[in-house]
């Protein structure tokens, strides 16, 4: 068989989303790859320029649909900075609670998809089953399973329901026990090691040059985590370790993500304890009406009046489950943001595809791309 290009996508079981990986192969060897994105480009940045600040949150949930709350958090921090607002402390803790739940849910989703890529069938179901437990918790205080619209500029929408923290602790204990089972199913199998060790290697220097962040970078031996290096919200008051490995391969990324989930459990325990002890407001007081202050009826005269707020530029960076996400919000003194620009971690991680795919085999593509954890929604935006 001579060299040929094959299209893996947009409809292909490997992609886990809507994108196309063009692969040039010789037999089973990969000679060249060319990712083709944009099949899910919905123009979120353009639509955001047409929306009120709080209405953009709707889009943020759908921007990365497995980590909606992390993206809400990202956008909220940037726009609060651009609008010169501050949220109360309990709201900050609630946001951290959301983000860590989201990290768990996203990593469990990743686990489910990744094990399917290497041919393990039943752990897919286990991952989805345990993810549903977290979604149940999120649903109990945000009201939705996936698209939450929970955070607001200046706070969060609502407080926790009674009995929430006890239920959370139960779920955390259950998950802790399940992670042992996950590791047995994957690391306990020789075939897993044969498939994943030394695969898709991307060394630290290449990671930095190509802008790769998140678990991929940490698996290459760089313990970089914005939660620790550039603390936002209340991460500087919480205790946790940065998971990292030095193999820079698929197994390393697996280990990093599993360890991150354990650390998330640790963070969540602390946050839940804090929330038990410190009741308080979850929304800032001094909010302009058009931002939808709590219980302000929508449509009163203040809502539609064009208020001018001091101009400002807001920048935020959040350690999203996939890596470093950044937002740049330009406030030109109106109800709508003048320009919103997002940086998606997966966007950069995919752009380095040539570095970690060429030279391997066709059968290696699913595990490698699975370990990258592609979420097309945030790549194409």
């Amino acid at each position, binding site marked *: 068989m001579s060299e040929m290009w094959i299209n893996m996508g*947009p*409809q*292909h*079981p490997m*992609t*886990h*989303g*809507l994108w196309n990986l063009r692969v040039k192969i010789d037999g089973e060897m990969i000679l060249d790859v060319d990712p083709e994105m*944009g*099949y*899910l*480009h*919905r*123009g*979120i940045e*353009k*639509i955001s320029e*047409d929306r009120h600040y709080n209405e953009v949150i*709707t*889009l943020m949930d*759908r921007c990365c*649909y*497995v980590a909606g709350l992390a993206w809400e958090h990202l956008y909220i921090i940037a726009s609060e900075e651009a609008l010169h607002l501050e949220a109360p402390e309990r709201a900050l803790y609630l946001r951290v609670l959301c983000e860590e739940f989201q990290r768990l849910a996203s990593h469990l*989703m990743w686990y*489910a998809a990744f094990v399917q890529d290497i041919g393990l069938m039943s752990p*897919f*179901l*286990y991952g*989805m*089953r345990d*993810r*549903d437990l977290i979604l149940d918790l999120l649903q109990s205080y945000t009201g939705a*399973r*996936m*698209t939450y619209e929970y955070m607001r500029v200046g706070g969060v929408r609502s407080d926790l329901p009674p009995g929430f923290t006890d239920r959370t602790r139960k779920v955390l204990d259950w998950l802790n026990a399940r992670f042992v089972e996950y590791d047995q199913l994957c690391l306990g199998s020789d075939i897993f090691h044969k498939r994943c060790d030394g695969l898709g290697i991307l060394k630290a220097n290449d990671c930095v040059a190509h802008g790769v962040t998140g678990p991929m970078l940490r698996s290459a031996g760089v313990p970089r985590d914005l939660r620790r290096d550039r603390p936002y919200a209340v991460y500087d008051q919480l205790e946790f370790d940065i998971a990292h490995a030095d193999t820079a391969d698929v197994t390393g990324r697996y280990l990093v993500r599993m360890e991150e989930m354990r650390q998330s459990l640790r963070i969540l325990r602390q946050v839940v304890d804090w929330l038990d002890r410190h009741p308080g407001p979850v929304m800032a007081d001094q909010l302009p009406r058009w931002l939808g202050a709590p219980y302000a009826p929508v449509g009163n005269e203040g809502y539609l009046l064009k208020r001018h707020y001091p101009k400002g530029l807001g920048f935020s960076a959040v350690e999203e489950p996939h890596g470093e996400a950044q937002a740049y919000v330009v406030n030109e003194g109106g109800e709508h943001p003048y320009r919103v620009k997002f940086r998606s971690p997966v966007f950069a991680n995919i752009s380095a595809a040539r570095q970690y795919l060429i030279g391997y085999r066709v059968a290696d593509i699913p595990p490698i791309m699975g370990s990258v954890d592609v979420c*097309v*929604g945030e790549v194409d935006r």
Partner: protein
Amino acid sequence: MTTPAPLLVSKPAEPLALGVDLPMVDQPAVPFIEIETLRAKEFIPAAKEALGSLIAEQGQAKVIRPVFNWAGRNSLFPLHWGLACCAIEFAAAFGARWDAERFGVVPRSSPRQCDVMIVNGTVTWKVAHKLITLYEQMPEPKWVIAMGNCATGGGPFRTAYSVVPGVDKLVPVDVYIAGCPPRPEAMLDGILELEKLIRERKE
């Protein structure tokens, strides 16, 4: 050591070879056969008459079609692909809690083996012609379910420059599922609605 007595094994003295030494051929069973013959003589015309009247009454199609209709609606294979947010709920519907396979719904990756295309997410103009190709690759009879607000009418991205405002602009849609994204229950409900549609189908 004594060999244990084999159970159930009665090793024949000489193995039977095909075509010779047939034990049953030389047994004349005349009275039995004649009784059966009488019965058969009565049965055949009666059965013929009953079947004839059934077909005359209902038409041949009406006898055979319900079987295929039952089969078609009980084994709907959706196309395995994920467009956007709804794809996650689509996957969750096949998870342990909802288990869409209970209804015989098994996702297949090749459009040739699919019956129903579940459009689970925002359709952009860039993917539009690929979606149409996939639809055309599916063999008849086929159905389309528009899952979620984006596939139904563009959803929150309705005004965007790159989004198809509803997949029904591209392919005929049989069932719309509301929600952004619909819960897995809603997806299962959509599939059951489609089953109802197929049950009532008249061709």
